[in-house]
């Protein structure tokens, strides 16, 4: 029981983290039609910034805030210097150019921070176990991730659906020429959206940093998961990304936790322990394959023009 609740919460936490990443990716794709492979690099930069600023200031929270700002600025600089020249080009061009950016970021991090990873230690008040049910404790930090991510999801929803900028963003997604013609500064709007996506990726990176080590290439594995989520949820759909992210987070976490035991019921011990790791890492791809067979456009496709 204890294990089930704990793994369930772990799945939720991982899923919400994936949502932050997938939301930025799908926002940028849905509005600017830009495939940004370097999104994972922004996630990595968020983690490195957080570890560095936290060490400088001596405060975890201050470090996190500074890192958030730094990732936002980095995203804006990146958009203005390189990516804005790619709008309207072939998707393949996006893939290649941002692939080049990944090489660049990984190497820049190696140059600045060295090849060894960094650690981002948690402050004492975030390491205490919190009682959530009678007799069941859950780490405060993981709980904090769940709360922050839910809050961001809510803000994102309200921001996109209820504010004037959100209205422009939605309008830009459905017809870019028209909102340009209406006198909206679409260049600025795109830069802001990209900065927002970068900040979301940075937030995910810095929140994950205390759990895993901060290391080169950390964004690449998780970027693929974000892709899977977008494919399952439907490209350009924030709602789809949210639901698919939680689904994928759950399946991945629960699969890793319980599949070995489940397999041991059917297979011999040796066969089960061989098959379980491979099978549990395949699980979400199998899920994606099934979704594709049933609905090639994803489960919750955004309205296409």
């Amino acid at each position, binding site marked *: 029981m204890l294990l089930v609740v704990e793994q369930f919460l772990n799945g939720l936490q991982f899923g919400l983290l994936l949502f932050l990443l997938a939301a930025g990716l799908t926002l940028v794709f849905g509005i600017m039609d830009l495939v940004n492979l370097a999104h994972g690099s922004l996630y990595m930069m968020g983690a490195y910034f957080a570890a560095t600023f936290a060490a400088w200031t001596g405060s975890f929270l201050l470090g996190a805030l500074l890192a958030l700002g730094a990732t936002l600025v980095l995203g804006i600089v990146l958009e203005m210097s390189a990516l804005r020249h790619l709008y309207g080009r072939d998707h393949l061009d996006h893939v290649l150019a941002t692939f080049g950016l990944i090489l660049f*970021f990984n190497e820049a991090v190696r140059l600045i921070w060295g090849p060894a990873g960094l650690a981002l230690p948690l402050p004492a008040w975030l390491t205490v176990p919190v009682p959530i049910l009678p007799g069941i404790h859950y780490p405060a930090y993981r709980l904090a991730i769940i709360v922050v991510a839910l809050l961001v999801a809510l803000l994102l929803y309200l921001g996109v659906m209820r504010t004037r900028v959100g209205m422009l963003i939605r309008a830009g997604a459905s017809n870019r020429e028209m909102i340009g013609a209406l006198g909206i500064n679409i260049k600025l709007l795109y830069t802001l959206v990209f900065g927002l996506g970068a900040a979301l990726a940075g937030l995910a990176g810095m929140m994950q940093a205390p759990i895993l080590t901060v290391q080169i290439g950390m964004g690449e594995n998780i970027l693929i998961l974000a892709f899977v989520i977008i494919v399952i949820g439907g490209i350009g759909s924030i709602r789809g990304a949210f639901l698919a992210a939680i689904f994928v987070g759950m399946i991945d976490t629960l699969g890793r936790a319980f599949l070995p035991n489940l397999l041991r019921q059917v297979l011999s011990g040796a066969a089960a322990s061989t098959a379980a*790791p491979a099978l549990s890492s395949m699980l979400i791809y199998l899920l994606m394959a099934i979704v594709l067979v049933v609905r090639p456009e994803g489960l919750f496709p955004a309205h296409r023009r």
Partner: protein
Amino acid sequence: MKAFSVSKAVTALMLAGLVLLPLYSYLSGNVFILTLFTRIVILALAAASLNLIMGFGGMMSFGHAAYLGIGGYAVGMLAQEGVGSGFIQFPVALAASAIYALVIGALSLRTRGVYFIMITLAFAQMAYYVASGLARYGGDDGLTVYKRSDFSGLINLSNRTQFYYLCLACLFGVIFLIWRIVNSRFGLVVQGLRSNEQRMQAIGFPAKRYQLVCFVISGTMCGLAGALLANNTDFVSPAVMYWTRSGDLMVMVILGGMGTLFGPVIGAVVYLLLEEFLSQITEYWALIMGPLLLLIVLFGRGGIMGLLGRLNRG
């Protein structure tokens, strides 16, 4: 009729260089260059196979490195289990790649555009994780191939020169095959699908079936490159399938010139030599390579072949 074409001249020079390379290596005593170019030729073969679906078929597969791994693991696993004959290893490698391509292609071709890019990418990552989980075959650490494929004395893969020429022969064979395919009725249909799928379907061609066959042929060719690669490094690991490797292959195709017969070969030679050259200047070579790619995308349309073509026109 053109009397002289720069791109043709460059291509001919490069091919002549590739054929004569072992002679240069022998005369100069530079063994390293032969090892380097064996790897380049094998990856050029992989890039050429990707170009078949990407350049001619318009299918942007971002998971092509998976076939490198599958071909390699077929050789490695069979060697581990005591089956050393290349006459068994290579057909198994090709068949395994073909089957994987058939399944992945059938699923991925249900989608198009950027979905297709992401799905092929994700499925290749799946292959990567599966290989990482194969504890019996080295898992994360990879699998050492203690003995190269044995072709009953016909070709000795441990002999550098013979192995190089085998790889080069495979590359030329594959390019010849691609040339035949592209100019066949089948190839014309696939190219027609690239430019207007709806129209081709309206004429009555079963679009997906043509694309799937092309996808499988391409994957099988890349599996051959994988089997050669495992023999070249005497080692195969999940890293061969990592998605950045697929990105490398894509870069080679684009850099050389997508949809041209010899473009991917030129792209592979230039990209890998550049990598070699930059890594000799600085440890942080990717710091230069990354922005260079960005610049090539922004300004170098049509790749090197396109550039040579423009030179020709004056």
